[in-house]
C-alpha cells in the first residue's frame, strides 16, 4: 500500500542526505520526496511517499524516528488527510488541438501559465491520480515535458504536526 509520511526535520546540513541514505541503505522504496523549510526556520518539513506492507512501513517509520535529526513524524495515510501535487506540463497545441487542450485544462481546473504559437504550458494541482489522469486524457504523444513536485500532505481537521 502507498503511504505518505510527513517528517519534521532539523534544518541542518546533511539531514536530508541521512533520510535519503536510509532508504537506499535499508532497501526501502521511495516514490517521491519533497522538502522545504517551515515557518520555524530551524525545522524543515519533508513529505515522502513510499509503498510497502505494514511490516515494511513500520520499519520505515521506526528507522526514520531513529535518525537524530528527525524531530517528529506522522504517517498521514493512517488518518484523513489532504494530499496535493503540483505539475507543470508543456502540451503540443496547434490548430484545432488548441481549443481541445483548453477545454481539458478547464475540466481539470488547471491554468495555462505560458503560451506560444504551438505550445501551452499548463499548471495543474491535485492528487497524484488526477495529474496522471490529465496526462492520460491529453495523450502522451502530445506531452512535450512534465515536471512534478512530488506529494505534499497535511492531516484533515484539528490534528497538527508541530513541536
Amino acid at each position, binding site marked *: 500500500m502507498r503511504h505518505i509520511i510527513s517528517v519534521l526535520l*532539523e534544518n541542518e*546540513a*546533511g539531514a536530508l*542526505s*541521512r533520510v535519503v*541514505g536510509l532508504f537506499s*541503505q535499508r532497501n526501502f522504496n521511495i516514490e517521491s520526496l519533497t522538502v522545504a523549510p517551515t515557518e520555524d526556520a530551524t525545522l524543515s518539513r519533508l513529505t515522502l511517499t513510499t509503498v510497502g506492507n505494514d*511490516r515494511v512501513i*513500520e*520499519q520505515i517509520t*521506526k*528507522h526514520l*524516528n*531513529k535518525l*537524530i*535529526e*528527525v*524531530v517528529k513524524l506522522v504517517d498521514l495515510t493512517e488518518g484523513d488527510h489532504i494530499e496535493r501535487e503540483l505539475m507543470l506540463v508543456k502540451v503540443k497545441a496547434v490548430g484545432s488541438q488548441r481549443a481541445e487542450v483548453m477545454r481539458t485544462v478547464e475540466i481539470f481546473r488547471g491554468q495555462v501559465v505560458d503560451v506560444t504559437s504551438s505550445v501551452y504550458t499548463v499548471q495543474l494541482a491535485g492528487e497524484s491520480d488526477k495529474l496522471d489522469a490529465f496526462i492520460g486524457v491529453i495523450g502522451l504523444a502530445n506531452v512535450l515535458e512534465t515536471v512534478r513536485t512530488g506529494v505534499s500532505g497535511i492531516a484533515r481537521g484539528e490534528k497538527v504536526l508541530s*513541536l
Partner: protein
Amino acid sequence: MELLSGAEMVARFLKDEGVEYIYGYPGGALLHIYDALFQQDAVEHILVRHEQAATHMADAYARATGKPGVVLVTSGPGATNAVTGIATAYMDSIPMVVISGQVMSHLIGEDAFQECDMVGITRPIVKHNLSIKHPSEIPMALKKAFYLASTGRPGPVVVDIPKDMTAPTDRFEYVYPKSVKMRSYNPVTRGHSGQIKKAVELMVSAKRPVLLAGGGVIAAEASAQLIELAQLLKLPVINTLMGLGAFPGNDPLYLGMPGMHGSYEANTVMHHSDLLINIGSRLDDRITNATEKFCPTAKLIHVDIDPSSISKTVGADVPIVGPADAVLNEMLKQIKATEFTPDEEARSTWWQQIEEWRSRHGGRYNTDDSELFKPQQVVEAVHRVTGGDAYVCSDVGQHQMFAAQYYKFNKPRRWINSGGLGTMGFGLPAAMGVKLSFPDDVVVCITGEGSIQMNIQELSTCAQYNLPVKIVCLNNQSLGMVRQWQDLNYESRHSQSYMKSLPDFTKLAESYGHVGVEIGPGDDLEAKLAEAFAMTDRLVFINVHVDPYEHVYPMQVPKASMRDMWLSKTERT
C-alpha cells in the same frame, strides 16, 4: 573567561569529560590537535600502527568498561582506515567517539590532498556524525557526540574537524558543557508498564518458556536482574554470541548459545518452546535460521531499547521498548506482586525434556582422528589455565565459534568479539585495548593464522606500551570457516582458503621483543599453555598447530528451522 584554540578545546574537553585514553595516529590535518595533546598529561594517547587498530582498541575498551572509547585519526586515508572499526562498533552497538581531522574548510570539495568526505562515508555506519563549522562549536559538538554514543542504543559517533577550526591563533571562550539536551533525541529510560504486565502474564502461565539474553543485557548492566528472573521462574537461559557472560556459563539453567553454531540443546529448546522471552537480542539471521520456520509454537516477548530492532526479522507478540535493566526491574517487581502459581507439573516435564536434550550432544568432539590438537581442546585448556576468568578477545572464524562454545563465561564484558560485522583483525587490537585498562587481569587473544595477520603490525604497539597479552593462535594453516563451507557446499574445492608462506610466528614475535611458543603433536598442551600464561609481564605468541580438518558443530542446516542441525560430519538431527 578562558580563551582556548580549537585544538586546545579538544584536549581540554577530553580531560573534562574524564577520558583516560585516546587511540590514534597523527597526520597533517591533526597537527594542531597533536600539539595541544603534547602539552597536557591528563589524557594518554596511544599510538597504533594502523588506524583500524585504534578503532578496535577503543571499541574493546568500551566493551570491557562500558565507557565510550575515543579515537583520533587524520583526514583522508587515516579516516578511511578507521571505517572498518567504526562499522564493527556500529553493528555491535558499542559506544565510540571518533574525531577525524579534515582538510581546511576552504579546501573542502576541491579534492585537496588527503581529503575525503568522512561524514558522507561513515553516514550509514554511525549512530550520528557531525562536522565543525566554527571553533566555538567544538565543546558542545563533542559533548553531543559523547552523549549520543553512550545513551539509548549505544553506537559510534564521528566528529569531523577541519584543520582551520583548530588553528592555535584563533581563540574562543571555552566552557565545559556539563549537560546537553536535544529536542529530537530522547532515549527511553523505562518500558511500558502495560506491555510488561502482558509479558509477565505470559511468563507465569507458559509451559515451555525460554529466556534469551543478548548484548542489550550487557550494555544495560542487567545481568543481576536477568539471573534473578531466571531463578525466580526456573527458566532455561540462552546467551547470544553478543550476550555471552550475561548469564553465567556454569549455571545449571544455562543451555549455551543459539543459532548457526549454537548448542544442540539451546536450538532445540528454542524450537519447541511456547514462549521466547528475548531480552536485548536483535534476532539476526545467524540466530533465527529461516525466519518463517523460527520457533513455530512460541509467542515472542521482545525487549529492546531500539524499537526498530523489534519485529524487524520476527514479529513480536509483546513488544517492549526500553533498556534491559529498567524493564527487568519492572518485570521482577510485577512478578513478585502477583500471586501466581506456575504449573509445576508442566515445568518439571519441560525440564526433564531439556535435560534429555542436553545429554544428547553436550558439545562433544572427536580427539582420536588426528595427531594434532583439536581447536576445541585448546580452548578448553585455555579455560582451565586461566580459571575461566580471563578477558577473551577473539578474531573471526572457526576459532571464534570454538571460543564462544567452549570458554564458559561467568561474567559479562569478558567476551570481546566482533559479532555483527565479523571483522577479522579485531582480536589483537581488542586485547590491547582491554589490557591497557586492566593491566592486572589475564587478557587472551584467541585467533587464527588468517585473522592475526590482518593486524599483526600491532605487535609493535604492544612492545611500545608493554601490553603483555597472550595470543593463542589456533593455526590450521587455512581459513577454517571458509574451508568448512567449501567442504560442505563445494565438494572440498578449497578456493583461496589455505595459506602458503606463513611466517615463523615465534621469530616474528621475538623480532618485536616478545616471546614465541610453539605447541604441536606430542606436547603437553596444558603444561605449555600454563608456562606461557605464567609469563605475566611478557606478550607471548602461542602458536598451536591444530587439526585443519576440524569443522564447527553443531551447524544449522541452511533455510531450515532452529532444530535442524548437523551435529558432526555424519550426524544430522
